[in-house]
C-alpha cells in the first residue's frame, strides 16, 4: 500500500442553494519519501486536497489512508491528534505568531509533541542558527518561511505539506526554499507534498499530480527529478 492513498474522495461546499464540488472523486497515491507536487490552476481543488490531507478539513465521501491509518472518518479531536503528530504544514504566508521569536515559534509546535527536535537545532538545520531570538517582523520573507519549515520539521512529522511555499517570495528566495524542502526530503527521507500553480516547479518533483476542476488529470512519477538550481521560471 502506498504511504498516501486517496480513493474516490469528494468534497462539496454548500453556498446557499448552490453546491460546489471542490474535490470531485479523486484518487491518487504517493509513496513514502517522495517529493510530490500537486499542480493546477486556481480553483482546481488542490488546496482542498491539501487541507483534507492535512486533517484541516474532512471529505464528504471516499477514503484517505495516510501511513496505514484511515483519516477520512476521524472526528475533530482525532484529527487534531493526527495534525499534531503526523503532519507538518508550511504555508504561503508563513503564519508565524508575530509575538513570538523564531525559536519560540518553533517551540510552540515542538512543545506539544512527545518526540520532537530541539528548536534551536531545527532552526540551525534551516540555516537560521543566528536568528533564534528575532521576531518574525525582524526577519525577511525567506527567513520567515525557513522558520515556518523549521517549525514543521521540529515535530518530526510523517508528512510535510506545503501550500504555495514560494508564493509570497521572490524568485531567488523561492528557489532557496524549494532547495531546502528538496534537501530535507532527500536527506531525511521525508515525504513532502507541495501544491503550486507554478508548472515550472514540477521537474524537481518525484511525482507530479495535475489537477483541474476538482479532478486529478494525471499522476506521473518523475524518474529523474531535476535539481532545483537548474529550474527556472
Amino acid at each position: 500500500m502506498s504511504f498516501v492513498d486517496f480513493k474516490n474522495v469528494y468534497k462539496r461546499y454548500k453556498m446557499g442553494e448552490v453546491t460546489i464540488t471542490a474535490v470531485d472523486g479523486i484518487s491518487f497515491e504517493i509513496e513514502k519519501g517522495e517529493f510530490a507536487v500537486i499542480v493546477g490552476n486556481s480553483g482546481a481543488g488542490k488546496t482542498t486536497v491539501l487541507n483534507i490531507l492535512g486533517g484541516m478539513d474532512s471529505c464528504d465521501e471516499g477514503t484517505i489512508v495516510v501511513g496505514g491509518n484511515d483519516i477520512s472518518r476521524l472526528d475533530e479531536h482525532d484529527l487534531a491528534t493526527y495534525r499534531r503528530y503526523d503532519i507538518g504544514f508550511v504555508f504561503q504566508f508563513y503564519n508565524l505568531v508575530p509575538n513570538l521569536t523564531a525559536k519560540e515559534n518553533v517551540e510552540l509546535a515542538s512543545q506539544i509533541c512527545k518526540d520532537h527536535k530541539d528548536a534551536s537545532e531545527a532552526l540551525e538545520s534551516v540555516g537560521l542558527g543566528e536568528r533564534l531570538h528575532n521576531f518574525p517582523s525582524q526577519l525577511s520573507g525567506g527567513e520567515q518561511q525557513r522558520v515556518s519549515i523549521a517549525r514543521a520539521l521540529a515535530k518530526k512529522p510523517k508528512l510535510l505539506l506545503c501550500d504555495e511555499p514560494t508564493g509570497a517570495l521572490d524568485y531567488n528566495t523561492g528557489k532557496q526554499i524549494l532547495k531546502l524542502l528538496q534537501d530535507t526530503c532527500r536527506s531525511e527521507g521525508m515525504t513532502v507534498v507541495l501544491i503550486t500553480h507554478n508548472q515550472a516547479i514540477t521537474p524537481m518533483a518525484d511525482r507530479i499530480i495535475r489537477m483541474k476542476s476538482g479532478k486529478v488529470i494525471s499522476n506521473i512519477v518523475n524518474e529523474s527529478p531535476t535539481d532545483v538550481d537548474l529550474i527556472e521560471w
Partner: protein
Amino acid sequence: MTSSLWKNVLKDISKTKARFISIMLIVALGVGFFTGIKAVSPSMNHTAENYYRNNDLMDIRLLSTVGFSDKDVEEVKKLPHVRDAAASYYTDVIMEGDAGQIIRLYSDIRENENQTAINKPLIKEGRLPEKKGEIALENANFNSGNSKIGDTFRIEPKVGETDVEDILESTEYTVVGFVQSPLYVSFERGTTNVGSGDIHMFGIISEDDFKSDRYSQIYVLTDYSGDSKDTINKEFDSAVEALEPQFKNLGLERAKYFDVEYLNDAKKDLEEAQKELDSEKDKAGRELSEAFEKINDGQKEYDEKIAGAKETLDNAEKDIKNGEEEIKKGWEDYNSGIAEGEKQLETARELLKEGQAQLKSSRSEFNTKIREAEKQLNEAEREYNSGLAEYNRAVTDFKTQTLTARLALSALKTNYDNALNKYENITKPACEAIIGETQRTLDEINAELDSLKEQYENSESETEKLYIQAQIDIYETRKSANQSIIDRENKRLEDGKNEVDEAKKALDEATEEYNKQTAEPQRQLDEAKEQLDSAKAQIDSGRAELQEQKAAGEDQLAAAQQQLNESQAAITAAQTELSSRKTEGRQKLKDSEAELEKAKEELKKGKEEFEKQKAEGQQKLDDAREEYESKKLEAEGKLEDAQAKIDKAAETLEDLENPEWYFFTRLDNPGYQSLIDDTTRIDAVATVFPLFFLLVAALVCLTTMTRHVEEKRTEIGTLKALGYSNGAIKTQYIFYSAGAALLGCVLGIAIGMLTLPKVIYNAYGIMYELIDLEVIVPVKITILGVIAAFVSTTLVALYTCQKSLREKPASLMRPKAPKIGRRILLEKIPFIWDRMNFTSKVTARNIMRYKVRFFMTVIGVAGCTALILTGFGLKNSISAITDVQFGEIYTYDLTVILNEEGTLHQKTAVLDYVKNSGFVESAMLERQASISASNEKGTNKLDDIYLYVPQGSEDMKDLIHFRERKTKIPIELTDDGAILTEKAANSLGVDVGDTVIFEDDHKKYTVTVSNITENYIGNYLIVSPECYRELYGKAPLFNMIMAKMTEVTDENESKLGAKCLDNDDIAAVSFISGSIDNFLDTIKSLDTVILVLIICAGLLAVVVLYNLTNINIAERVREIATIKVLGFYNGETCAFVYRENIILTLCGIISGLGLGIILHRFVIITIEINKTMFSRTIEPESFILAAVLTAVFAALVNFIMYFKIKKIDMVESLKSIE
C-alpha cells in the same frame, strides 16, 4: 449613499449582529442607568412640588402662647406678601390602648367663598368630617388593619393632668374617612409636650369639637408659593424666612389687645375667688382648733393617771430586778468559787501529772544512762580482753620467733667455752712448759756461745779457733733449733688464743644481733602490756564509779516517787472537799430563786391590770382624735382643691401675660427637610455611581467600535478604490455606529426611565408618604448620556474611519500589519523570565502587546467588580446595623415610659416595681428629651436629636454600651462632658473636645463633647445625671426605664406589658423587638436599590467581558487558527487564549475590590439619612462574593467563547491575509 452601500451596511449589521447588539446593550445599560438614576431626584422633587402646590401646603404656621382670635387672623391677612391666612384648632391627646400613643387632632381649613383651602388633605377613602363626633384618620400610621369607616375611635380621658373633656367635646369619634396630608410627607409626626413626646399619628375632626374659644394656630399662604412657582429651593426658604419680623411685630401689637380683651376680666374673677376661699379657710380653722383643745385636756388627765400606776409597778419591778440581780450574783459567786477550786485542783493535778511524767522521764533517762555506761564499760572490757589475747598471742609469736636464735647462740657459747677451756687448760700449760724448757736450754747455749766466742777471740791458734768456731756453729745450730721450738710453741699458743678470741667474737656478734633483733618487739610488747594494764585499771575504776552512781540515782528516784505519792493523796482530799461544798451552795441558791419567782408572778398580774386600764383610756382618746383628723382632712381637702384650681388659673393667666407669637415655616414640618435632603442625596449617588457606569460602558464601546472599523479596512480600501467618496464610506460606519447608539439610547432611556425612578421612589416610599411619582425626563442629563453614547460609538467610528481613509486604497487593501512582537520589560529580568515556562512567557508578552486591551479589560472588570462589591457592601452596611445596634449597642429589650410627674423616690419605686415583675433581669432609670443641637458656630444644626441621661446604675452595663466604633474600646460616661453619637457628631461637624450648643425647652445649654460613640439609629447627646445637674441647675427628671428581660418571648412581652400598664405611674411600654421590625421595614427599601445595582453591574460585567474577549479573539483569529493547525486541541487552544483573559480578569478583580471600597464608602456617606448611620464595614464574604461573581461572569463569557473558538475555521482563517 447608494442602495448597495445601504445593503452593505445592513448586511454588515446582520453579519456582526452579536457585536451590534452588544454595542447597543452597552449603550443601553450605560445611558439607561445614568439617565434613569439621574431622573430619580428631579422626578421626586417635581412630584413633591406638585403635591405641595395642588394641596396648598401652608408657607407659614403661626403659634401663640395665648392662641388667636378672629381679629388676629384679620390682621395677619392684611400684612404684605400674605396671599391668604386661616386659623384652626389642634390638640394632642392619647389614643386608647396600651401603647399610650399620641394623636394630634386638628381641624382643617376648607375652601369657601372667601377662603382657599390650606393644607388640603388627600382623601384616600371616605370623606372629611362634616359635623361633631366625626373623624378622618390618617392613612399611613394608622396601621391597625381592621379599622374601617364607621368604626368608633376612642381617646383616653386624660392627657397628663388635663382632662380631655376640658378641651374636646367628646372622647369618642366615628371614623368617616382616611386621609393623607401634605403637612406630613414622611412618617414622622413631630413632637409634643405630652406623654412620650412623640406624636404617632394625626386625625382631622370638626372645628365644633374643640371647646377653646381661641384658635390654636394660623396657617399663612404667601405670594411666593402658588400657581406655577417652585418652592423646593433656597430662594423660597429665605424669602419666607424674611417675613418673620413682620409677624413677630404683629404678635406684639396684638398682645396689647389681648390684655384688654381677655386677661383683665379673668384676673378680677380670680381675685374674688381667692378672697372667698380665704374666709372659708379661716372659719374652718377656728372650728378645728376648738375641737383640738378638748382632746388635749382629756389626754392630760389620762396621762397623769397612767403615770401614778406606772410608778407603783415600776417600784415592784425594780425590787424583783434587785432580787434577780442578787441571785444572779450568788450564782456567779458560786460558779466562780467552784470554778476556782476546780481550777486549783486542776493545777495540782496537772503539777502531779507533770511530776509523774518528769519522774518517768528521769527514770528512763537514768536507766538509759546506766545502761549506756555499762555498755561502755563492757565495751571497754571486751576491748581489753581482746587486747590481752592479742598481746599473749604476740608474746608467744615472739618467743617462737627467737627460739632458733637463742639455740644458735647457746651453741656458740658452748663452742667458746670449749675453746677457752682447751686453751687455758691444755694448750697454754703445754706450750709454756716447752717454752720454759727450751728457753733454759737456749740460755745455756747462749752462755756456752758467749764463752766460746770469747775463747775464740782469745785463742790465737787457728786451729783452736777453728775448733772453737766449729763448736760455736754447733751451738749456733742448737740455738736456732731451740729458738724455732720456742717460736713454734709461741705460735701454737697464739693460735690457741686466736681460736678462743674468734669463738668469743662469734658469740659476741651473735649475741649482739640477737639482742638487736629482739629489743623492738620486746619493747612493743612491753608497751602493749603497759596499755592493757592501764585499761584494766580504768575499767575497774569505772565499774566501781558506776556502781556508786547507780546507787545514788536510785535513791533520788525513790525520793521523788515518794513526794508524788504524797501530792496524790493531797489532791484526792481536796477533791472530796470541793464536791461537798458544791452541793451545799447550789441548794442555797435554788431556794432563793423559788422565792423570786413567786414575786414575779405577782408583778405580772399587776401589770396586766394596768395595761388593760391604760388601753381603755387610750382607745377613748384615739377615737376622739381620729374623728378630729378626718374632719380636718375633709376640710383641708376641700380648701386645697379650691386653692389648686385658683392657683392653676392664676398660673395659666401668668402664662398668658406677655403673649408671644411663634413663627414656623415649611422647613419645620416633620419630614419636609429630610425629603429634600434625601432627594439631594440620591442625586449625589446618581452622579458618581452611574457616571462610573457610563464611563466603563463608553470605554468598551470605544474599543469595540475602533476594532470594528479597523476590521473593515480592506472593505474601506475596496470601496475607495471603486471610487466611492470618503463621505459615502464614512456614512456607512456612522450609520452602523449611530444605529447601535440610537437603538441603545432609546432602549436604555425607555427602560431606565420606566423602572429606576419607580423602583427607588418605591424604596423611599417606606419612609415617605407621597403621591404617585410623576417621572420627568432630566433633559440635560439625557442629552449628556446620549452624547456620551454617540461620542463613544459614532465619533470613534468616524475618527477611526477617517484615519483609515487617509491611507491610499492600495495600502488599505493590504492587511494592516499585525502588531509586531517585541520584548517586554520582564525579559530583562532573567531571574524571573528564565524561570517562567513557555506558555507563561507567551502570555506575559501578549498581555503587554495589547496594552489598550489590557487596560480596557482591567478597567472594565474592575468597574464591574467595584459596582458589585458596592452593592453587597451596602447590604452589609445596612444589615450590620440591626446586628450591631440591637445586638451589641442596645442590649435592653424594652423601654417603659413614665408619667412626667413624681419625685426621684417615686420613680425608684416604679423601677423596683418593674424589676420585681418577674420578667426583668436588669433595669435602669433614664431621661430622654427631644432637643435641637448645633455646633459652636451654629453652622451645622440638628433638630432630630435626643438628650439622653442614664441614671447610671450597676445594671447599665447590661442595657446599653458606649464604645469607639473602630477600636471597640468601651467609653465611660463621665461627669465632665457629653457623649455624642457618631452620626450626630458628623452632622454637626464636631469632634471630641469641641463644644455643642443644644436647645431644650427654649433654653440654650453648652456642653463639651467628651467622647463619640458608635451608634447607627437615632442621634443622641448623652450626659450623666451629675453633668445634667451642672447644666440645668437641677437634677434630671427621669421619664423612662430601660430594661432587659430574662427571656424574650411574645408571651412574656405581653404579660410584662400588661403588668407595667397596671401601674399608674407608667404611661407606656415599648419593646425593642418592635423597633427592629420597624427598622427592617425601613431598610428593606434599600435592598431594592442594591438588587438593581448588582443586576446592572452583573450585566455590565458580562457585556464588557464578552466584548473584550470577542475583540481579543477577532484580533488573534489567525494565530488561533495556526495553533489549531499545529495540532492544539480545542481545550489547549482556549487555554492559550484564556490564560491572558484570566490574568487580566484577576487584575481587574483585585483593583476592582480596591475601587469598590472607595465607591462603597462614598455611596454610604451620601445615602445616609439624618437619623441613621450605616456601618462602614464590608464583610469578607462580600469581597469573596464580588470576586467570585465577577469570576463567574468571566467564566460564563469564556464558556460562550469556547464555542466561538471551536468554530474558528482553520482553512478560512489561513486562506489569505485578511
